[in-house]
């Protein structure tokens, strides 16, 4: 088990538990009461820690090395998953995976960012940072889904689109922009779930949909707290402050009306019970797909565009009275 900094009290309790279990294994002393007591204590401590997480702690949780990733969810939620590779132009991006799968009797096109589960795989997956061909593969799959009237499910978990030299050469910006444009008009339902990190254009590139949901311990905003700290505070040391200032948690996003719903995670985060997490995600996808499929494609597209058109907050001043240029 990997413990985060703020989980220190939990780590100590687990250590105690292990020791007692060891003693118990000796078979001389009956420790079952002690174990029960400790387990209860662990449960309470966990609840306490997790009921009051700061923005930065949620960012840490969203990056927990044991957190389930896209392929785990696909494996748990769908059957007959057939991965489809390549953008037909340049390459197959390993940071975005996707393919056809069955959800009960319904075929879906499922895709998402994929991070690696160990050092070697993390490199192979480029830490979940997609190149233009990743976004173009995603678009190719979506257009195919549209042709065959198959709904699209996107799982989002990225620290950002890859800021590399070749990515620029191949048009990272164009690839993301094109996806936004095409997703806005896609005739089939699109469901988006932030399952980990939702960083900026790299997340949005497969994140424009009819409904957008966030798991409880994830974040979604325009820049990572680290980069925000380096740009606005001109130092890497203000990531915690930046995480608070950006109001990037699921609660904030729901409050702002920028997402539709928060999906509860098991206490202690999705990684403490990945199967349970997958199960609740599965029933959520089923329910949402059904609602969306009842709508006419044109109505769905109109509603989708309206939903995004409403996003934003500003003031409208009377130009004759109070010129903004002469304000104060």
């Amino acid at each position, binding site marked *: 088990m990997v413990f985060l900094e703020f989980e220190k009290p939990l780590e100590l309790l687990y250590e105690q538990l292990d020791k007692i279990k060891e003693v118990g294994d000796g078979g001389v002393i009956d420790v079952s009461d002690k174990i029960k007591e400790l387990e209860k204590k662990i449960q309470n401590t966990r609840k306490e820690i997790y009921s009051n997480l700061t923005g930065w702690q949620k960012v840490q949780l969203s990056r927990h090395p044991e957190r389930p990733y896209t392929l785990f969810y696909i494996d748990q939620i769908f059957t007959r998953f057939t991965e489809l590779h390549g953008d037909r132009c340049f390459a197959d991006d390993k940071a975005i995976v996707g393919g056809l799968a069955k959800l009960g009797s319904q075929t879906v096109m499922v895709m998402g960012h994929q991070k690696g589960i160990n050092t070697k795989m993390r490199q192979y997956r480029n830490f979940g940072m997609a190149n233009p061909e990743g976004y173009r593969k995603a678009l190719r799959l979506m257009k195919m889904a549209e042709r065959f009237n198959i709904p699209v499910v996107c799982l989002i978990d990225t620290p950002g689109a890859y800021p590399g030299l070749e990515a*620029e050469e191949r048009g990272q*910006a164009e690839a993301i922009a094109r996806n936004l444009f095409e997703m806005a*008009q896609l005739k089939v339902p699109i469901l988006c779930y932030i399952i980990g990190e939702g960083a900026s*254009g790299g997340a949005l590139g497969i994140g*424009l949909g009819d409904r957008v949901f966030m798991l409880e311990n994830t974040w979604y905003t*325009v820049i990572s707290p680290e980069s925000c700290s380096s740009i606005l505070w001109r130092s890497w040391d203000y990531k915690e402050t930046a995480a608070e200032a*950006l109001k990037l948690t699921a609660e904030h996003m729901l409050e702002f009306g920028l997402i539709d719903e928060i999906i509860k995670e098991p206490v202690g985060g999705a990684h403490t019970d990945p199967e349970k997490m997958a199960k609740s995600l599965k029933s959520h996808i089923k329910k949402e797909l059904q609602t969306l499929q009842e709508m006419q494609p044109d109505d769905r597209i109109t509603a989708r565009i309206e939903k995004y058109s409403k996003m934003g907050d500003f*003031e409208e001043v009377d130009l004759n009275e109070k010129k*903004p240029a002469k304000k104060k």
Partner: protein
Amino acid sequence: MSWFKRLKDGIQTATKSKKEAPDGLWHKCEKCSELSTHKELDENLYCCPKCDHHVRIGSEKYFNIIFDGKYTRLFDEIVSKDILNFVDLKSYQDRLDAIYLKSDVSDAISVASGKVNKKPLTVCAMDFTFIGGSMGSVVGEKISRAIDYSIENKTPLLIISKSGGARMMESAFSLMQMAKTSAKLTLLAKHKLPFISLMTDPTTGGVTASFAMLGDLNIAEPGALIGFAGPRVIKETIKRDLPEGFQTAEFLIEKGFLDFIVNRKDLKQKLDDLLTMFTNVESEAELNEEPASAS
């Protein structure tokens, strides 16, 4: 032997005939260091007379170049708001207040409608001097309304981008403007109205990754920096120096992301050409022709 000997006494010019040298009379080109007067520069549409370096200019200047000074400003009443009570080294509201005192534009984008040689056009132009031309809710909303206006009045749309990207002080709200503007542009496309995206120095981040790259025509000014990630970030990522000319307009056209590069002096004529071709009107004469009266 007048080399070392002063033959004339002191300054000869009478005080009354002294000329005032106004501040900032001279402009030194940041590229070729050539000196030129601001008047010369202005007449040259802010391109260096020697090396043609395109100096960054604001929205007002573009409107004047394109519309010959005759245009209507739109949506100036929409202004930014500190939605999140965002504070970094300074509060967002303080930043806004400070810039309102200095700037004559109300946000990082201005919208105007007018005519290019009798052909109607809606233009959105960004101002880099307003928080780095960053895209917040106001930029998104003004573009959104400019699109509605274009559809209502059946005019093509030109967006002149000049931006560092999304406005961090509006956090996710600024991110969603990428989705908002892109989604709205699909409506313009559905109404078969052309959208021309002109990228000027610099166009980066969320602006490039949304409306700026979505033009029916993507065009740029010479030498403009255009990219998704900024050069500094890329350098830090790949840990080596970037090739010369990387992420310039000339680089992008080679990589296939631009239709053409347009010199500021040719912009108006080029727009005229395009608008003529898109509207399928043969010539000026035909446009001016009165419809034949039925007899």
